[in-house]
């Protein structure tokens, strides 16, 4: 029986070809469930919502195409502009608060003192507590006449404000509570970053005579910059998702003072049933978050030191 010399080689090549086909399709097969989920539950609704933002749709009747009217209405409406301003102020307060307090807590619980695990858990506890429960309890604490905080302030001779009722401070109050609730989450991220900094670098700085302040600002903080960048990016995106506390504590009031874009989307979509307008507001929000995140990434090179 005549057997060609290169049969084995040919077989191997054929096998390789078959494997190549298999290799190219195999990852997609594994990705398929996720891709289907992504397309069905994310991309299609986003595309649908994009279309709806150019329509007038109250759910009951078929959507009517109205071009840019929803966007025009939004930008010509003073109360919408107030909502945008509220959202940006909330975001600035939240991100600043979360960065400072999250890092401060992380530095505290990074020390090796007895019982530190308890404090790590305690600081993290508000993160896993229901936002509705947090909102109700803080409303009691901040009650003008019967709340524990105002009673304490009155005892020490301070005339307390209406924390949630005064339109000039209500947004600051809600931002503070959101910071209080979420600081533990960012503390964990900062803690991981702090523990990742090589101890040898810190020791070398100490040998060179750096004091603890110099050690923190000249060594720890710059070396923490990749974590800080990550936390900043996540916190900015998170700052725009502030529905639960506002719904529980102020319902956007007093007088629209704590109404933010996310809450406005909810009101228009599920209270007023203005799905077209609500979609337009959603896309304005998406563009805003996208722009800020883009700028953040652009600025990254200037202050993030990713090598050590």
């Amino acid at each position, binding site marked *: 029986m005549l057997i060609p010399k290169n049969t084995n080689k040919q077989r191997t090549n054929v096998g390789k070809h078959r494997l190549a086909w298999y290799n190219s399709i195999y990852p997609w097969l594994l990705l398929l469930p996720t891709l289907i989920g992504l397309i069905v539950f994310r991309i299609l609704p986003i595309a649908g919502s994009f279309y709806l933002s150019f329509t007038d749709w109250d*759910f009951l009747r078929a959507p009517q195409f109205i071009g840019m009217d929803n966007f025009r209405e939004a930008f010509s409406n003073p*109360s919408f502009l107030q909502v945008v301003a509220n959202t940006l102020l909330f975001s600035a307060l939240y991100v600043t608060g979360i960065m400072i307090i999250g890092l401060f807590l992380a530095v505290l619980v990074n020390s090796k003192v007895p019982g530190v695990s308890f404090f790590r858990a305690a600081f993290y506890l508000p993160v896993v507590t229901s936002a509705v429960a947090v909102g109700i309890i803080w409303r009691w604490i901040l*009650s003008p006449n019967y709340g524990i905080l105002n009673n304490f302030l009155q005892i020490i001779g301070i005339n307390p404000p*209406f924390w949630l009722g005064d*339109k000039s401070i209500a947004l600051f109050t809600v931002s503070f509570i959101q910071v209080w609730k979420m600081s533990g989450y960012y503390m964990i991220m900062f803690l991981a970053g702090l523990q990742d900094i090589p101890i040898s670098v810190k020791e070398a700085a100490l040998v060179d005579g750096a004091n603890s302040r110099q050690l923190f600002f000249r060594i720890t903080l710059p070396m923490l910059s990749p974590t800080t960048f990550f936390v900043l990016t996540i916190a900015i995106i998170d700052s725009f998702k502030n529905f639960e506390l506002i719904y529980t504590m102020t319902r956007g009031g007093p*007088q629209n003072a704590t*109404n933010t874009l996310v809450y406005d989307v909810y*009101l228009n979509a599920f209270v*007023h049933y203005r799905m077209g307008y609500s979609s337009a507001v959603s896309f304005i929000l998406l563009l805003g978050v996208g722009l800020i995140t883009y700028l953040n990434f652009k600025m990254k090179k200037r202050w993030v030191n990713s090598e050590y």
Partner: protein
Amino acid sequence: MKRVKRSLLLLMVMSITVFSVIAEETILEWWSWDVELKARNEAIIKKFEAENPGVKINLTTLSTSEYWTKIRLLANQKKLPDVFEMSSGYVEEWARDGLLLDLTPYVNTSLNKNDYYMSVFEAGKDIAGQGKYYAFPFALVTTVLFYNMDMFDKAGLAYPNANWTWDDFKKAAKKLTIDKNNDGTIDQWGFWFYGRYAHIEPWIYSNNGELLDRKTMTYNPDANAVEAMRFLTDLVLKDKSAPSKKAMSAFRQQDIFPQGIAAMWVDGSWNIDNNRTVADKKTRWGIAEVPRGPNGTNKYVNGWPDYFAISPYTKNTELAWKFTKYICGEGLSLDMYMAGKIPTYRKLAESPDFLQKDKMPPNMDILLKQANMPMKSSYSIGWSEWRGYGAAESVGLNGIIDAIIDGDMSFDNGMKTANESINKILKRYYR
């Protein structure tokens, strides 16, 4: 072999019987948002099915927030359930869009009108705005003046009655506003309100006022309505017998009166239930009609129905009507009504049990008197947006009145802002 044949024959006969029963069964879909009544609604279904062989009712119960989103989408797809719960806040919009079966022929020919408070049917007809009955009311809520009897007794004041005027009310509110320990902080307010619809509209209608011009569907409060709003805001700003909104910002609004922080309060009659839960068991409190304004005639009451409606797409119209009539009348029992909700079916409302003499308030008969009166409300399409309701209560007219009593806006500026902003909203809905 014979046995096998016989068994097979029997099986065939049984299958045919079961199949024919299934084939003859008429199914009605019923949607309700009252989660608490689910078990009782199921009991009603059992009774109705027993009385109507071959009928099967499928009940779907959803929480209010879920209910409206889902049923609106079903309406969009023309797949509405045969019978479904309907709110006064939406009935005009749904009737306009042809999503409710016109019940006028049935109400006129197939309803014993002596069995029901027809004033409630008329109120529903007015709200729907087309001169037709589009939904079957099963309950009515009105607005009343709640008053704390103990506080009135302590102040040596006579209880409010049907003849009370705004002046009587104002004097009482002042006398009931007390700083108990002279520390400069009011411990007991005479009255309390904010921009909420059930706090404002009762005063407008008790002064023969109107917020909307129904012919042009514009926001155009007449002089009587403006007078009512000025009277209320002056209670906070001038008389100091009612607190600002911000001073009450930490409370659930419905708890302020039963917790004894205010001696009087005007809101919906359904709050009787919450008052009983929250108020101290020893506290004595009553209800009265909203005091009459200088231009008021006691002719109208601020009230509105809850209904069941029938889908215009139902294939079983007669059966759907029969079932709707059943669940709005003879199929119901008094324990299905939250205290303060008035059954439209007279037999229930006028039974001695409705008055619940062993509980507060001792004068529930006022509700029955109101049920016979003509009613008014401010409902329209886009109501939640222009009026500022629920999750949107910080905006619309609600937000503006709050701004006035919080001292952030003058009364005149508030009225002007309301005029401009609300008409912009209404124009969008009624273009």
